[in-house]
């Protein structure tokens, strides 16, 4: 490697960010990795893969992992579909466009805690929704203590993230040259054909980014669930972070570290899989 060249300058400029990343993410993660291989009681001793085996044995961990995956698999496609549809709608309409955009993005900036109060009031056993059901003469549903809880949390998740994804799609949509659509119309292609062959294709890079961000945000949904349902929610909503939060509360640090290492590992595999597919697609495109 030649010093005094471009790459040296690049490293110098990158170093603050890299050092920050190392100190706040890489090093703590390394410590967590080490922690997960130890036993702290009765004395500090090497425990090998005991904690990982224990995790896979724990019914609660398996439940949490299954719930997290299920939630992501269900809510992310719905979010992407809805936000794409909204983006196309807003793109086409001229009426009150700015106002529409602002109002859809607004949920993102509202603090979670204040929103959660509203949702709690609505979904509580003695809450707003049940009050309305009672008036209609229908049996009450314990929203957060039944399978409906996932629907409620998915609704909150989609409502919150719709704006952000919509803006991303909107920007990408506006980047597609109009001439393509005109050419397609001239050649006699229908709406659907135009959508599939032009829009989707040119949205692919944005789509990758949106999928990644949505997956990551779907893991963050723990915040809302915890504020509404507490430490031990109904089975369906018991997510990985609940497991980790509770393990932290009982100060079982090695188990907690093992769980987080596993989770990072899975997410890393998922993300690298997505990126690899994208790279292959890019190569095909060129």
């Amino acid at each position, binding site marked *: 490697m030649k010093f005094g060249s471009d790459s040296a300058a690049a490293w110098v400029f990158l170093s603050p960010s890299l050092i920050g990343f190392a100190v706040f993410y890489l090093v703590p993660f390394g410590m967590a990795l080490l922690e997960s291989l130890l036993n702290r009681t009765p004395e500090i001793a090497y425990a090998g893969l005991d904690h990982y085996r224990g995790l896979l044995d724990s019914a609660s961990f398996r*439940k949490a992992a299954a719930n997290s995956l299920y939630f992501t698999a269900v809510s992310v496609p719905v979010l992407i579909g809805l936000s794409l549809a909204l983006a196309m709608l807003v793109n086409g309409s001229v009426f009150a466009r700015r106002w529409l955009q602002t109002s859809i993005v607004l949920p993102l900036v509202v603090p979670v805690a204040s929103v959660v109060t509203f949702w709690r009031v609505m979904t509580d056993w003695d809450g707003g929704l049940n009050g309305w059901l009672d008036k209609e003469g229908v049996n009450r549903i314990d929203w957060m203590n039944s399978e409906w809880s996932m629907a409620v949390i998915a609704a909150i998740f989609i409502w919150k993230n719709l704006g952000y994804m919509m803006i991303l799609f909107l920007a990408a949509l506006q980047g597609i040259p109009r001439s393509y659509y005109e050419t397609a119309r001239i050649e006699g292609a229908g709406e659907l054909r135009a959508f599939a062959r032009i829009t989707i294709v040119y949205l692919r890079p944005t789509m990758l980014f949106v999928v990644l961000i949505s997956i990551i945000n779907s893991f963050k949904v723990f915040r809302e669930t915890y504020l509404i349902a507490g430490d031990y929610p109904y089975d369906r909503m018991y997510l990985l972070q609940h497991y980790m939060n509770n393990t932290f509360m*009982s100060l079982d640090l090695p188990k907690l570290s093992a769980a987080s290492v596993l989770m990072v590992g899975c997410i890393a595999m998922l993300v690298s899989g997505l990126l690899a597919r994208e790279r292959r697609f890019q190569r095909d495109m060129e």
Partner: protein
Amino acid sequence: MRMLTLLLSASLLIAAVAGCSGGTNGERHVSSPAAGIESPTGKERDIPAGEKGEPVKIVFSAYEANAFYEEAKREYERLHPHVRIELDLPVKGQSDLSGQLLQKFRETTNAKFLSGQGPDIIEMDRLPMDQYRGKGLLADLSELMSQDADFEREQYFTNVLEHADTGGLYIFPLNFSVEGLMGDEALMSQSGMNVQDDTWDWTVFEQTVNELQRLGGHEYGYAYKSEESLLYDWVQSQYPKLVDEQSREASFDSGLFTGMLTAIKEMQANKVLAANPAQLISGSVYFQEVHLASPEDYLLNLSAVPYEQPAFYAKPKAQEGQAGTYFRTQNNLGINAHSKVKQEAWDFLRFLTSRAWTDMPKLFPINKSVYEEQKQTLLTDGTVKGNPFGRYEGGPIPVTQQRLEELDAILAGAKLQKSYLSMTIEGILFEETPAFFTGQKTAEEVAALIQNKVQTYLNE
């Protein structure tokens, strides 16, 4: 690429160094060979200095700063100049409405224990007993007791000690209180019913009350605070059957729990149970719940209930086959299993139980001789100032030998411990059961929900 590998290996090295440095024990406790020393006279024992003549240090930790801990420390240090006791009592009379002080205490104590720097003696009242016992953080006190030649079991309330813990004795309670019922004995003997309060369970109780109601007299059988607190009471008495902490299994969906729920509802309907305080004051209840914490308490409670001839009855057992009176312990002290000064810590613990300190909580002491002293003082005083609401209307209540002997019998029958519920499970119970008692959900639904959540907690 080489730069990247260099950077990665550097950060991993840093991680390794950082991870390993947290393991060393900061404080060094000097242990002394105190075992096998013959005690010259009485209860005090000579603690020799450490091998190098250094003082022996005992760390004592409790949530609240009780004044008697400080008094005991001064006294003990005066008698044993080689011993230094360090008191770690974070909360000094502050109120903790938000629960944050308690949370902080729990977390710091947990962290200390996990890093091997836990205190030598710890008051377990506010800490999760099941987790500490499960992780082997507390020493088995029965071993220390049997090794100690000076420990005279008969000096203590052995019935309480034997039942204070499950599977070995990991905590030593300093005090305890007794729970039971005050009943209208006049009506009881009038009806000619033979009340077997030592062994009766709630079914028999219900039958007895129904019989008494039939014969006329009071309207209700038993006054209680709320359905949830009664249910909590029952769960506490049956805790080992509902939650098996060893195998981490919960059985709330069994008939036992749903039976409890429906039984409470049924008893409410039969007027066996009354939740209205008005009935309590007007005296139209056969039995009321009492907690006895001292001999004065016993006399005060006898005078406070609106019966002409009150008597103490043991509470109905939560399940048939149990016998005795329910008790609850307080100031439960445990010794750190990894303490290097276990013998010295045990000696200080015994010292704490050996006399009545000035500011002790007003409860029955675990040491029988201290209790006998309390009784003597009362007898010499002759009277106790009455409760303004009771029959004596604030006037003096006479202390009689007969009453004190009754109390002796009650304390001798204290054999049933009210288990400490895990705080998580307690929270889950109080959250989910109101829906059943207001009639919105069925017992099976509520039991299934609770079972689910508790099992999730146990599976973690």
